[in-house]
């Protein structure tokens, strides 16, 4: 298949998936029990007028769809309503205009809220994932090259232990250890009140805040990358062409870099691409432990508050990031291994 056709096909199916997610997102949260207008306000004095006003403000007074007043509890409503005046249509219409709605809880536009949060998460993820990838791949190559030696066994044991550590637990342990013995900050992105300090002071402060969450993420993901890299590398190293390369008198480094690594890299690229998509959501635990104001923290808080617009927006962002990461993995894969492209 032609590369352009392949790209079109893949992009088309990605778009379809995103469309499906859009619809699903709307219904997913509306079956949650609880009235968003009341979720945050437990005051018994709240009058019916106040409730009605809040409902109206967020469009919750309109039926979800014709014949359906709400999804929870499943309440039937009038069927003869203007479909343009239903929650679902308004949601889709807003999305098509690039609007994700207003957060019920913070009353600020969801787009604005998520933009800031996504950036914070991206900073956290890029640091942790980069370290995990570099160390994991290097460790995997080393373990495979030194297979069945002490180095290999040590790498295996450490990886297995690290992989089985619960993220939350590891985060807390590092938090205690890092704050007590290394004087590292416990939470947040920057020490509050540093706005007037110089750029260098702010930079070092930000770096210090990144250490513990990055370390947590690196340890958790490093193990996965190391183990996968090691096993694929072992397969590749048993191939005849590696033997040929060695026989040609190439150095170990050349054999690994030019002959083994590129072939062994395929599975790791898939995993990394998929992880990049999923870790946006996976950062929930790390962000909760280290009070990191990212997307994961926003999701965590919004579930409890029935903040549908934020949840819809965040889940859309997650879905898009997973789909885009998948698409990139597919394209990258076929570029790295032309056989894949031929098979499609």
């Amino acid at each position, binding site marked *: 298949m032609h590369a352009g056709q392949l790209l079109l096909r893949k992009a088309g199916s990605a778009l379809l998936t995103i469309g499906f997610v859009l619809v699903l997102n709307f219904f997913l949260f509306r079956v949650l029990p609880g009235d968003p207008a009341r979720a945050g306000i437990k005051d018994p004095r709240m009058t019916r007028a106040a409730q009605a006003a*809040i409902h109206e*403000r967020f469009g919750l007074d309109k039926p979800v769809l014709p014949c359906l007043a709400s999804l929870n509890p499943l309440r039937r409503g009038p069927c003869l309503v203007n479909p343009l005046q239903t929650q679902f249509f308004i949601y889709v219409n807003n999305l098509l205009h690039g609007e994700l709605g207003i957060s019920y809880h913070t009353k600020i536009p969801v787009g604005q809220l998520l933009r800031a949060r996504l950036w914070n998460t991206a900073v956290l993820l890029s640091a942790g994932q980069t370290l995990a990838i570099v160390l994991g791949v290097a460790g995997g190559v080393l373990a495979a090259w030194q297979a069945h030696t002490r180095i290999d066994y040590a790498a295996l044991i450490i990886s297995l232990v690290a992989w089985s550590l619960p993220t939350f637990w590891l985060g*807390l342990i590092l938090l205690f250890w890092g704050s*007590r013995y290394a004087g590292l900050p*416990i939470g*947040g992105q920057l020490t*509050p009140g540093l706005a007037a300090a110089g750029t260098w002071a702010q930079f070092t402060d930000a770096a210090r805040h990144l250490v513990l969450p990055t370390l947590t993420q690196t340890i958790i993901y490093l193990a996965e990358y190391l183990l996968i890299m090691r096993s694929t590398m072992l397969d590749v190293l048993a191939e005849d062409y590696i033997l040929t390369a060695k026989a040609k008198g190439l150095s170990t480094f050349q054999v690994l870099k030019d002959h083994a690594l590129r072939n062994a890299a395929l599975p790791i690229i898939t995993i990394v691409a998929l992880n990049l998509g999923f870790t946006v959501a996976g950062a929930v635990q790390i962000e909760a432990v*280290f009070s990191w104001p990212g997307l994961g923290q926003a999701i965590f808080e919004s579930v409890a508050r029935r903040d549908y617009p934020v949840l819809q927006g965040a889940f859309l962002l997650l879905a898009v990031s997973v789909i885009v990461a998948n698409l990139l993995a597919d394209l990258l894969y076929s570029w790295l291994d032309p056989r894949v492209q031929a098979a499609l």
Partner: protein
Amino acid sequence: MRKLFRLLLMLACGLLAACTAAPTPEPPAVARIGYGGSPDTLNPGTAVLTEAYTIFALVYDAMYTYNLDGTYSLGLAESVDRSADGLTYTYKIRSGIKFHDGQPLTARDVAFTYNLNKAHAEYPYMNPYTASMESITAPDDTTVVIRLNAVIPNIESQLVFQYVLPAHVWQAHAAGAAAVEFENETLIGSGPFKLLEYKQGEFVRLGANKQHFSRPPKVDEVIFQTFGNPDALVQAVSTGQVDMITELPNAAAEKLGKAPNVKVVSAAPFAPAVSDIIFNQATSASCPSKSACTGNVALQDRQVRVALAHATNKQQLIDVLLLGKGTPGLTLIPNGLGMWFNNSLQDYEYNPAKANKILDDAGYVPAGWSDGIRCAVPVCPYGSPIMNFRMYWPSDSVDAPRMAELLAGMWKEIGVGVQPQAIDPDALTALCCPAFDFDIMLWGWGSDPDPNLLLNVMRTESIATGSSETGYSNARYDALYEQQSVELDLKKRQALVWEMQRLVHEDAVYIIPYYEMQVQAVRTDRFTGWIVDQNKLDLSDVSSLVNITPVK
């Protein structure tokens, strides 16, 4: 020789510089506070979370100040005059007060604020405070006249949280949806602190308003930093990254108290709260139309409720659930309500033998077919209902599952069974009131400083409106409620409120397992002057934050 000369020159220059250099300025005194949340919005009309109100109380002034001992003192007003019919209040506002942006605060700002709150039903907390106000006017810059539509005994509690907003800022956002959508990012107030920097979900940085008319802070800044989990909060105070934390898990209190330079303090919370064990007492006569009223008939009998009270070991509940950080409860009016709390009541002592005897004497014998569980009706004709109560609690409650388990164990001793079940809070509201489709519920209330809200919950009139969760009906209680709600004499009203508590305690309308204490922790090596010697505790209250000074 040249080298020596250069060295001498350098030394001279150094000395000169040292002598002429200005003295190093003292670093600003910045108190750092760790808390578990963040304001939801800076608009006082639409804010819901406690964290927002903590900030508002520091940044704004109100007509009254609520003190830690539960009393009120005049804030923005220097005097108040009540008309003979009790319907008109005339306040004289202090002159010379300025907002943080330099504009003067006048009576017109006060009237503007109250009218704004009154005009917007979608202000969930502020609007109800204006319910009894017919009109609010400012005839001149220092006079505010509030005309009520009925006599109320608690004007202070209606005004104390209505923070006075600058009309010149809010005027453009006062009408319609704008009043709700206004984000109020500058948070211009007139209070002891002013907003310097705010990052939602991260921190609020406040600077001292040293020109405040009554409470200029001694520190330069106060920073509230958000921590995503309680363990991080505890660690932050123990490592000195913050100077105080507003909350901590009870389980951490003992260990944290032993950490160097950290003091853990506990007392009744500034914002009163109460946990309750609710008995469905709605009878077929009192059941509102369209309500299910499926409560177990046994709970309508005072003797049964009293027996359950005798069979409830409150101290064990406190020890297990709160790790000791609580006091045994009496009625729905918590000890945090200060003078309104009737502390003269004698509680039902824990005595399962006595409880058994009460039930035996009343004829509630164990049913032959129910594994030792008593019949729900005396004498127990065959096939009678039994005392196997449905016990519900909101699924977001942390303590309720364990409490249900403990209660089941205690009440088993007297032949009472329970069927525990966690239910989504909204579904539980639907089962509760006014449906009365339950036997027992474990829930709780937050309260205003005034007892009116909680007293209202036990009125007959509240059964149909859904405010009553027990279906309790007592004509004398209702009459006392009416009396106290128009009694303007503080002492007389207190006596009425105490008598009402005596009645509901005698009737065992609820079992109040405990009043939970507020537990906070503070560093002793950074600031002194935290207010910890009052009946109530809130170190993030303005009373502490304007009083603290750095440790020398």
